[in-house]
């Protein structure tokens, strides 16, 4: 990983399957990666992966006589689908795990994760058999079915109710440093964690840094809740995806690709620290955008802010287009700049304790 380019890390991570509640395999992979940079790495009982990078400088990094603790968190889980039933012809009825838009599903290729992986296609009523009223209405997930080409009897030997289904995809390089894949939300964030680790090996920082690749964000923020409690940090940095700029969306809700991470500002986030992040970006010539969040940010910052007695939290978001599809699109520079900005913020933090 140390020598891997950012797109290659993103590819490695997006190709792993880790639907919320089933993150074990990716957790193991991330443990290996974290061990290249961190002194200690462990996986907790919810499969959160925690890597500790001990302070490399002795200056100012103390609070109440102990080293200051910074939590840097990005969730590793992804949305998906689940097997609800198998009918007599072998068609699989489905439900969603996390926020899946049924409109992207017709004709989508999927992988059913039974006792072995099985490819399938999501089918729907053909257009010429739709009644005019149906044709305009968006399709409901209960009207869709997965076709595997395997008869019910054979299929039931491999697939059971509750098995996971993920959208098949191809890691695709677009023009101008953009990449498209499934789970760019939030493997971009996890890739940024690794970028921060890379950066921090080269700069002095007075705090112990706890990196967490968290689980079950897409369902109930569970990984964030329990890991921020367990680590009890003085400061939390949450890294997640925000919406990239797209047609028919308002400029206030979306952020340009390639123009840097969006720094969150709002009641849930610590105003002084957010301002420090912005100052660091200006001083270091790192591009950034401002993301105003009037209440819930839709990220793990919602959980970290009120963990134990409260944790001052900052939020860095990476712009991602077409969120929750298998063609989520990101600009690689935004991931790198998120890494640079967070690392330099961590270094600055321990030199200027008054910001806390």
């Amino acid at each position, binding site marked *: 990983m140390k020598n891997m380019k950012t797109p290659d890390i993103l590819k490695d991570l997006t190709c792993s399957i880790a639907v919320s509640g089933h993150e074990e395999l990716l957790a193991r992979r991330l443990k290996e990666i974290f061990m290249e940079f961190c002194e200690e790495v462990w996986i907790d009982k919810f499969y959160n992966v925690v890597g500790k990078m001990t302070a490399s400088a002795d200056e100012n990094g103390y609070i109440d006589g102990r080293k200051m603790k910074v939590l840097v968190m990005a969730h590793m889980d992804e949305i998906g689908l689940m097997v609800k039933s198998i*009918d007599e*012809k072998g*068609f699989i*009825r489905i439900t969603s795990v996390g*926020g*899946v*838009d049924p*409109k*992207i599903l*017709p*004709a*989508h*290729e999927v992988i059913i994760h039974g006792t072995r992986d099985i*490819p399938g*296609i999501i*089918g*729907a*009523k*053909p*257009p*010429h*058999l739709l009644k005019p009223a149906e*044709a*305009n*209405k*968006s*399709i409901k997930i209960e*009207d869709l*079915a997965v*076709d*595997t*080409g*395997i*008869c019910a009897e*054979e299929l039931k030997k491999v697939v059971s109710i509750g098995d996971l289904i993920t959208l098949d995809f*191809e890691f*695709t*390089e*677009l*023009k*101008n*440093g*953009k990449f*498209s894949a499934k789970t760019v939300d939030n493997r971009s964030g996890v890739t940024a964690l690794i970028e921060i680790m890379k950066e921090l090996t080269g700069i002095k920082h007075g705090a112990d840094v706890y990196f967490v690749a968290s689980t079950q964000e897409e369902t109930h923020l569970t990984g964030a809740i329990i890991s921020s409690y367990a680590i009890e940090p003085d400061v939390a940095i949450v890294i997640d995806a925000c*919406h990239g700029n*797209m*047609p*028919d*969306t308002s400029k206030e*809700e*979306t952020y340009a*690709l390639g123009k840097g991470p969006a720094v969150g500002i709002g009641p849930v986030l610590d105003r002084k620290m957010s301002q420090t992040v912005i100052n660091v970006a200006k001083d270091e010539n790192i591009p950034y955008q401002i993301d105003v969040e009037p209440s819930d940010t*839709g990220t793990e910052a919602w959980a970290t802010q009120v963990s134990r007695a409260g944790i001052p939290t900052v939020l860095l978001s990476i712009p991602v*287009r*077409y*969120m929750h*599809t*298998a*063609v989520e*699109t990101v600009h690689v520079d935004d991931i790198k700049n998120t890494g640079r900005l967070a690392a330099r913020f961590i270094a600055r933090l321990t030199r200027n304790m008054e910001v806390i």
Partner: protein
Amino acid sequence: MLLKNLTQINGVSGNEEKVREFIKKEIENVADEIKVDKVGNLIAYKKGTASKFKLLLSAHMDEVGFIVTGHSEDGLIKFRPVGGIDQRVLPGKRVVVGDKGLKGVIGCKPIHLQEKDERDKNIKIKSMYIDIGCDKRDEAEKLAGLGEYIAFDSKFTELGSDCIKAKALDDRVGCAIIMELLKQRYEFDLYASFTVQEEIGLRGSEVVGYQINPDIAIVIEGTTCSDVPGIKEHEYSTELGKGPVITVMDRTAYADKDVVNFIYDTARKYKIDVQFKKTTTGGNDAGKIQRSRCGVKVASISVPCRYIHSPSSVMSRKDYEGCIKLMEAVLKELENNTDYTLKILNGGNCNV
């Protein structure tokens, strides 16, 4: 596998060149003559050992896709469909743009940003766009200019033990079957046409019928298959795995009664499972060939394809192989069963 190679080539209506080149190369050694006509149809001729009559087998090379119609300030590509495409299958799918084969994705507003009424409605093609990563209009214009073709990006995959999934099964499956049949020599003169622009209104076949002036024409197609959840059994047009499909009538053609009966009787004689298409919707090249010159007796034999015209069509290998077997039997019987053949050829003037 032939079908794999054929479906991986992009050939949206009007841009069939690569498909044509591939087929041409494959059949060069088995055909007596090959020509490409003025609209781009590939026509192969195989002289018969007795040359009693002319049989035409036809399949279309083109597939549904899109064409670039504009560019936005921020470098996105606007497009329109070429051929009939169900807009519901498009959001979030991958495409290949232009001759350079640029990768792109069909973007749409994420569910988080959709208002309640937007969530309940389908997204219209005119509000969709393709993202190839460009940031500015001039860059997008340079890389993917107006009129460039766009195809689905979809691999050939095996499903279960019998099914395959690919784009463009309609009608590369027909092309593949005819390429197999061309390997044999028959008593009658065999013409094979691989036509262009079927998907936008049967354009290629309209001039094929005229040029060849066949006695009998059989169109080999990939056809709709609706044996899926939410559809009542009586609404099934065809069923997967139940064998090749014989069409009696559709929107464009009324298959010749004698030819249909002949095919059905042959299937029974050779114990090949067949099914009839149970809807009269859809249409194909048979419609144009039937009404060329003084009229041609036509029939359509098809392989059922679920999710047709989408990036992920599914067909059964058994149906495909059944279709080849059926066609081999039909061609053999056309040679042997002279009474029946005469009746087909002569229609009302026949005393048989």
